[in-house]
Every structure is written in structure tokens, then in C-alpha cells.
């Protein structure tokens, strides 16, 4: 192409000579960041079809051209091409800046196999589009379990919350397209409201080192980003269709993207999933049907120097909760635990009855950025999120169709950041964010509010420095400060207020006495300081070592502070405590990576000391007219979590590979010298893979998943008097399910339908042997087995 242009230009120059024009167009081409000259950039005057290149100092000059407006195209290998108009009158000087650090341009697709990481010195794992698409019909939590050290805490199989190194819920930040998800993430039965299909890339950063996202990510950060957009005139799309045997369900997801080379783009995505009752090997899991609808629009304008992005997403999840898990008092719980199978088993159905959840989450985001020459990138973002949560219980009479929980959480956030990257050896990033959140608990439910009405204000600022000490060593440091104020209006039953002993400590927050209830106005301020430091050293092409340290604080969430009363879906009385302080984590970790032609190894180790760790544990029983209920109270202790994660992949040859992913974690309550509750047990996955480009790009793998029985758990079992038998009965809420082993199979082929269209066909079988098992971290393990065999067929069109 260049040769051709050169010939054309040469011919033209000869012709131009005959014209009576004598102006000169000259200037310099240099790097945007550091101003260094760019050698051998091509300057093409499109209007008159003339051409030159820059010299060693980045200078160029074209003589003998006519006055007038010219379209100029400046390009250089590994730089973004620039196109602009210049008005030439006499000798005209024009300086051009090009973006040289092309790998930092998010719109440019990164070729090669190197993972696209967001940090240099953290324990970070990247999931690419192909890995995400495989889980199109499942949830974020399911997809992340591919990562060693990431597991999940479930309520059934549809409500899946990710756990990073033993920590979950409020200790994990989920970022979606630059927005921190605010969706009542505190509850275990509140899964992140994310449609996995909106993500093109997912990065999981373990620990709190990524301070730009927040200071309270004691567990880690999950960053979801939409697919990269290339700057060219194009229209393309993707449709995924899948059907599966278990739940007799389907999933459809479609994305259509239009891009323009000038920088405009718009992408529209919609998805829908519907499943009926899922099946354990021996019975249907009655009332586990679910229905998901998602829609998103992502559009804007982006060039290297400036751009903006408008994003809107809508997601509605309607999820049935296992019928048998809805129980009354402690006697029902004893009956359920002692019964080997669910007490209600009906025929297969698509109906979603109570108990069920109906959650709608909407995100609207606007952000824009501007780059300044020899300086850096400034970005400003505003987002609004609306989370509406209904939970329906089995109720009587006129309340049957009335939700038991009706919460609306609205969050406004504004944030600004400045990344100074003119010197690639010392990059600085500063940021500020402010937010306002309002929770409204609708009193029409006829049930006392589980979470009170509150306003929350927060403001945070951070500074991060990344240094490239030499070609082999990177270091970074960060500090962050966050202020959080919670201003709640909460009713307490007078009896509960007295039982908690709040009368002495909190008498001043009572604003109204209604006899049996007190209206209070707790206002709590929290100051959180976070810091991080990391070092990554690459000894040679094979060995890399990473160290990092993170200090972070997390303020208690509304559930930990204010919970008070019977949680129907858990059949227990949950009590928060106004006295709970923030928790402080000190985490050190280290990673060793080995990379050689056919072997890659990653060993990650961590130790996380959490002062005033907030957790909930059984503390006794309370009698009501309904009978006795177990009481679970939020408490604080000093805790230590430590463990290691292993990822190994070995290629025997071009076709066969073997990989292993294992994670081991221990959680200790240092005050009580006992195990922490709800810690993932040892898990190891061995995967035998086969791929062959010649057979329609076949990929197939056989996965063996082994999860050992958790032997380290606190014994919270107790005995309770059961009136209908007249005996003291043992309530085994602590014992863990036995070891289980599952075998899964995944395969896919890709067919080229036409030049621009391909079809990928995937066949996945999970739990091939239809093994009955229960998982410790599934809250419904008392009531039913986990899922049996599932065969899924997935068709994916790229066009």
C-alpha cells in the first residue's frame, strides 16, 4: 500500500510542478505523551494526493503546494492514524502529535495471548470474551469460579455470589462499565445484579490493592468491561442461543454494534433466560424456576484525545426459591434437616410461586474524558442506579400477593480522575468520588422493615503512583481516604431496644416514642484510610515474582448495623448492632509465575488479618407465638484468612493439554481460637484438553472437580425442646456435607458460514454421572441436593 501511495504521490508531484503554486506545508510530528519526535511517520495530503515522511527529528516539509483547505492524514506504524483539515496560506507550519503507547488505547484490540491486566503488581486474573460467552446462560458467580481462589456462596443454583479468597458480599466491589454496582449487596441471598452478557472482559483483582475502585474491597474487585470497540466503519453482531435439559430452559442473547471511523459508536444488547424447576439427581427442586430479562445500550464517541460514553442497562431477575426452604420455626428446621429429601416435591413446572424474588436494577451512566498533551488523561463520570427489590413470602389472606420486602435503593455517584502518564516510567493517578444513596423501605408490606430508610453520603479521594524502576521491575503505591455518613430513620420495638441495652448508649437518638415502638435517628460517620504497595519483578522470560501489601477499612453495612427481627426466608431472627465499628484488613500476598514454552505456573499465596471482622453467628433461641427461633447476631472478632491458589497449564503438544486449578484456604477466629464460619473447602480441578484447528477449530475438555469436606468449621449446633415430640432435639446447623466429585465435559467447534459470519456450536455436560451432592456454601444444603446432570447446547453466531 505504501509503495503504491509513493508511486501515486511521485506521479502527482511531477504534475504539481506544472502548477503555479509555491506555498510550503511543514511541521513536526511528536509523541503525545513525552513530546519525543516520531521518525518515519507518513504525511499524506489527501486533497492533492501528495506524500512525504518525517526525518530523524520528526520534521517534515512539502513544498510547492497551492493555498487552500487540505485534508491531511498522518500515520505511523504502532500509532493511531490522524485525519484533519488544515488551511494553507503561504508557508504554513503545523505540528502533529501522535499517540505512541498504542497498547494503552482501550479501543484497540490487543493481539496475542498476553492477558489484558489492569494492574501490574496485584493478584489479577483476566477472563476473555470466549470464556465469558461459555457461561452466557449462567451467572457472574458461575463464570468466576473458573478462577483459582474464587468460589461462590449460593442460595440454590440461581442466586450465586462470588467469594474471593473467602470473602464476599460487601467485601467485594463489582465494577460494571466503570460503575460501582450498588445493589444491596450485603445479603447472602442478594446476588449481584449483573447480566454477564453485557461484559466482554472480566478482571478479578484479589485483595484491596486496586484503590481506584474503592477502599473497602477487603476481598477483591471484579471489573467487567464491555467488548472493545474498533474505530472503523462497521456493523457487526453476535447472537447466542442455548438450550439445556436441566430446568428445560433456554437463553438468548444478542448484541448489535455500529461503529464509525470518526469515533462514534453504539451497541445495543438484549438477553432473556427462562428456566423451569431444576432437578437434583433424584427429584425436582420445586419452585426453582427463574426468568431473566436484560437490555443495555452503550454508545458514545471516542478518539484518543477525547470522548464520552453513555450507558444504560436494565435487568430484571425473577427467581423462585426452593419451596421446601420456606419454614416456620425451629421445629420445621429440625424436620427439614432430619429429612433426607425436600418436604415438598411437585411435578416439573415453569411457575414461579412464593417464596420468590423480583429484582430490577437500572444503571445510567455518563462519562467523558479528555487528554492533555504532555500531561495525561482527565475523566469525569456521573452515574445513577436504581435497585428495586421485592421478596415474596408464603403469606395468608389478603396479603398473599403482597411483597414481604419492598426496598428501593437509589444511588448517585460522581467521580473524577486524572491519570498523568506523560512519563511511562512514572505514572500518577488521582481521583475523587462523591455519592449519595437513599434507601426506601415501603411500609405497605405489613411486615416490619428489615432494612430501615436511610441516606448515605460518601466522599473519597485517592492517589496512586506506578513506577517502572527498570525494564524488569514495576512498583506502585497508593493511598485513599473515604468518608461515609449513614443517616437512618429506624423503628425499634421497645422490647428489642431494651434487650439490646441501647437505652444507655443511644438514648439521644430516640426521636419519637410510640409506646411499643421507638423511632430513632442514628447518624454514624466513618473515616476509612486505605493504602497499598506492590512490587513486581521479572527475573527473566521465565520467572516473575510479585509482592503486595494492602491496608483497607470497611464501614459496616446497613444489615450489620440495623438488622432486627425475623428474617422469614432464613427462618431465623437476625440482630445487627449499632455498636459495630468498621473492620480493618492488613493483607500481604505474593505470587510466583513461571512461563515457558509449554508450561505456565502461577502460585498465589496470601495472609489477610482482619481486625474487628464482622460476621453473623448463632447466639441462642427466642420464643414467640410461632414457637422457638434461632437467633443469629452480628459480632466482631479478630480474624485471619490465609491460603494459596494454584494454576498450572501444560501443553503436551499442539493438541493436548492438561491444567490444574486448586485453592486452599483457612479462616481462623483469633479471639475464640476456632474456625471461621462459611469458609470454602479445598477444591481442585483437573482439566484434560484437546484442540485441533483442522477439525473446525475443535476444543474439547474433560474436567474433574473435587471438593473436599470442610472439616474446619465452628460448632454452632445446639439442642432445643421440640413440643410436638416432647423431646430435646439436636439442631445440626453446622455439620458440613461430605466430599464430592463431579465430572464435566465441554466442547465447541466453529464453522465459517460466509466470509463475515461464523457459527460456533458448543456442547457442555455438567455432572455427567448425575452425582448427588450438597455444597457447604449453599444455604439450601439443609433442604435439598444440588443439581443433577445438565446437557447444554449453545449456538453462537458472529456476524
Amino acid at each position, binding site marked *: 500500500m505504501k509503495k503504491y501511495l509513493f508511486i501515486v504521490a511521485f506521479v502527482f508531484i511531477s504534475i504539481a510542478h506544472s502548477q503555479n503554486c509555491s506555498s510550503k506545508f511543514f511541521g513536526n510530528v511528536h509523541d503525545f505523551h513525552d513530546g519525543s519526535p516520531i521518525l518515519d511517520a507518513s504525511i499524506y495530503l489527501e486533497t492533492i494526493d501528495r506524500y512525504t515522511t518525517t526525518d530523524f527529528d520528526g520534521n517534515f516539509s512539502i513544498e510547492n503546494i497551492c493555498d487552500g483547505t487540505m485534508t491531511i492524514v498522518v500515520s505511523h506504524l504502532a500509532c493511531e492514524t490522524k485525519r484533519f483539515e488544515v488551511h494553507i496560506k503561504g508557508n504554513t507550519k503545523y505540528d502533529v502529535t501522535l499517540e505512541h503507547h498504542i497498547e494503552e488505547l482501550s479501543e484497540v484490540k490487543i493481539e496475542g495471548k498476553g492477558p489484558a491486566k489492569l494492574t501490574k503488581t496485584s493478584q489479577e486474573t483476566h477472563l476473555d470474551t470466549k470464556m465469558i460467552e461459555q457461561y452466557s446462560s449462567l451467572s457472574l458467580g458461575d463464570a468466576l469460579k473458573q478462577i483459582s481462589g474464587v468460589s461462590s456462596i449460593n442460595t440454590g443454583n440461581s442466586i450465586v455470589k462470588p467469594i474471593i479468597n473467602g470473602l464476599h458480599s460487601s467485601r467485594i466491589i463489582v465494577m460494571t462499565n466503570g460503575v460501582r454496582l450498588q445493589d444491596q449487596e450485603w445479603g447472602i441471598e442478594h446476588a449481584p445484579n449483573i447480566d454477564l452478557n453485557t461484559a466482554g472482559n472480566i478482571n478479578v483483582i484479589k485483595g484491596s490493592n486496586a484503590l481506584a475502585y474503592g477502599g473497602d474491597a477487603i476481598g477483591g474487585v471484579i471489573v467487567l468491561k464491555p467488548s472493545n470497540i474498533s474505530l472503523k466503519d462497521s456493523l457487526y453482531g453476535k447472537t447466542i442461543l442455548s438450550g439445556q435439559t436441566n430446568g428445560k430452559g433456554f437463553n438468548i442473547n444478542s448484541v448489535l454494534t455500529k461503529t464509525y471511523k470518526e469515533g462514534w459508536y453504539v451497541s445495543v444488547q438484549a438477553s432473556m433466560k427462562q428456566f423451569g424447576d431444576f432437578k437434583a439427581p433424584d427429584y425436582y427442586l420445586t419452585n426453582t424456576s427463574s426468568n431473566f430479562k436484560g437490555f443495555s445500550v452503550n454508545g458514545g464517541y471516542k478518539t484518543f484525545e477525547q470522548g464520552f460514553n453513555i450507558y444504560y442497562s436494565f435487568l430484571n431477575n425473577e427467581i423462585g426459591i426452593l419451596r421446601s426452604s420456606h419454614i416456620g420455626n425451629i421445629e420445621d428446621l429440625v424436620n427439614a434437616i432430619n429429612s433426607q429429601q425436600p418436604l415438598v416435591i411437585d411435578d416439573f413446572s415453569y411457575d414461579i410461586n412464593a417464596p420468590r424474588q423480583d429484582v430490577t436494577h437500572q444503571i445510567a451512566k455518563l462519562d467523558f474524558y479528555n487528554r492533555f498533551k504532555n500531561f495525561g488523561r482527565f475523566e469525569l463520570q456521573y452515574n445513577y442506579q436504581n435497585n428495586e427489590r421485592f421478596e415474596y413470602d408464603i403469606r395468608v389472606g389478603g396479603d398473599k400477593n403482597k411483597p414481604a420486602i419492598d426496598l428501593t435503593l437509589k444511588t448517585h455517584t460522581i467521580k473524577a480522575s486524572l491519570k498523568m502518564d506523560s512519563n511511562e516510567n512514572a505514572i500518577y493517578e488521582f481521583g475523587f468520588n462523591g455519592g449519595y444513596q437513599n434507601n426506601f423501605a415501603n411500609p405497605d408490606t405489613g*411486615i*416490619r422493615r428489615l432494612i430501615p430508610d436511610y441516606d448515605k453520603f460518601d466522599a473519597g479521594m485517592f492517589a496512586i503512583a506506578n513506577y517502572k524502576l527498570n525494564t524488569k521491575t514495576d512498583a506502585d503505591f497508593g493511598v485513599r481516604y473515604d468518608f461515609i455518613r449513614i443517616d437512618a430513620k429506624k423503628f425499634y420495638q421497645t422490647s428489642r431496644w431494651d434487650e439490646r441495652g441501647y437505652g444507655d448508649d443511644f438514648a439521644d437518638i430516640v426521636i419519637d416514642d*410510640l409506646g411499643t415502638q421507638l423511632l430513632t435517628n442514628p447518624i454514624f460517620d466513618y473515616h476509612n484510610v486505605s493504602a497499598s504497595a506492590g512490587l513486581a519483578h521479572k527475573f527473566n522470560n521465565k520467572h516473575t515474582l510479585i509482592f503486595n501489601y494492602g491496608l483497607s477499612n470497611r464501614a459496616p453495612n446497613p444489615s450489620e448495623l440495623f438488622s432486627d427481627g425475623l428474617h422469614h426466608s432464613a427462618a431465623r431472627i437476625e440482630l445487627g448492632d449499632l455498636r459495630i465499628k468498621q473492620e480493618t484488613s492488613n493483607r500481604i500476598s505474593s505470587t510466583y509465575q513461571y512461563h515457558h514454552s509449554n508450561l505456565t505456573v502461577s502460585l498465589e499465596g496470601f495472609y489477610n488479618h482482619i481486625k474487628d471482622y464482622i460476621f453473623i453467628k448463632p447466639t441462642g433461641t*427466642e420464643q414467640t407465638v410461632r414457637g422457638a427461633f434461632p437467633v443469629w447476631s452480628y459480632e466482631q472478632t479478630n480474624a485471619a484468612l490465609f491460603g494459596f491458589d494454584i494454576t498450572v497449564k501444560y501443553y503436551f503438544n499442539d493438541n493436548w493439554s492438561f491444567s490444574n486449578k486448586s485453592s486452599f484456604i483457612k479462616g481462623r477466629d483469633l479471639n475464640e481460637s476456632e474456625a471461621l464460619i462459611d469458609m470454602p473447602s479445598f477444591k481442585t480441578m483437573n482439566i484434560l484438553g484437546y484442540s485441533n484447528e483442522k477439525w473446525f477449530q475443535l476444543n474439547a475438555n474433560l474436567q474433574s472437580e473435587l471438593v473436599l469436606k470442610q472439616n474446619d468449621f465452628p460448632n454452632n449446633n445446639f439442642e432445643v425442646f421440640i413440643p*410436638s415430640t416432647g423431646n430435646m432435639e439436636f439442631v445440626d446447623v453446622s455439620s458440613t456435607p461430605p466430599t464430592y466429585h463431579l465430572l464435566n465435559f465441554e466442547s465447541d467447534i466453529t464453522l465459517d458460514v460466509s466470509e463475515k459470519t461464523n457459527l460456533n456450536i458448543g456442547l457442555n455436560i455438567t455432572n455427567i454421572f448425575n452425582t448427588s451432592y450438597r455444597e457447604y456454601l449453599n444455604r439450601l444444603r439443609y433442604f435439598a441436593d444440588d443439581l443433577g446432570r445438565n446437557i447444554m447446547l449453545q449456538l453462537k453466531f458472529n456476524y
Partner: protein
Amino acid sequence: MKLFKKLCIITLSSIVLASCSNDDNPVPVNEEEVITTLTATLTPVGGGTTITLQTKDLDGDGPNAPVITVSGPLSVSTSYNGNLQILNETETPAESINMEIEEENDEHQFFFQATNSIATFDYADVDGNGNPLGLEFTLTTAATAATGTITITLRHLPNKTASGVSDGDITNAGGETDIQATFSVTVQ
């Protein structure tokens, strides 16, 4: 750059507008399904002292335990006509829950149990399907004096056709417990 500025202004003004919170106090929730009180009234068939068994928990699911009262001892070898009165006394006047149970009688069933064989029970009412309900019942005391307990349980959505359930055996009933109260009773 113009676009950039405009977007800044729109963003900032929308935040200012959206941040106006209202300072009104929330209204207290009227708990609708709370059962505070169960009263069993036992009237001797041949006449005599009426005995009441009552459990009352005015703070509902709150920390205070129910207050249980038994008005007096039962007589040996006596049949009592029993009926149950279920109230929500958090409201004024107290709301009777009996009607709701009667309306959905096929979804509810009371169970009666006694220890030390101090009494036996029979259902005196049925639901729309002819299965027992238990708002009305008869209690027959033992022939010998003894002390023991009587437990009254209300199950919501029991499996009324399961084995033994229509005879008052709770073992296979399933469902959720809405009321459960145990009374210490003397038969003399």
C-alpha cells in the same frame, strides 16, 4: 471541548437536582399477619368450670417470650368442647385471625398433643374438602389424675392427605408452623 463542557454542566446540575432528600419521618409499619394471642376455651360438656389456656406475646417476633396462662386444672374423665380464638392484639381493637383461617381452611390445620396421656383430642370441624381443621375440637381427659403438657400447633400449608394427618398426627404434616404453644396442665 464544547461538548465536554456541556456534558459537565448537565451532569453537575442533574446531581444537584437529584440530591434533594426529604426529611419526613417514615411511618410505622402496621404488622398485618402478627399473631399475638391464642386462647383455647374448654367448656365441660356436662357443665362445670370453663378452663382457658392462653399464650400471649405482645411484641410478636420481639425478644419477649410469650406469657402462658392456664386458668385452672382439668377434671378427670371429662369431655370438654374446645374452641380456639386467635388474635392480633398489636392493633386496637384487636383483630381476630379466625376468619382468615376459616377462609383458607384447606391451607390450615391445628394439631393437639398431650404428654403423659392426660388427654385425647378429636376434631369437631372440617375444611371445604372434608379434612379436619381444628378451630373446634373436643378434649377428653384421662381417668386418672396426672400432670403433663398440652401442645397446640397451627400449620400453614400442611400436607393434609399424608398418612395420619387427618387423625391429628403431626409427624408427616409438613408445612410451616404459624403457632406453637405448650401449656402445663394438671388433671385432677
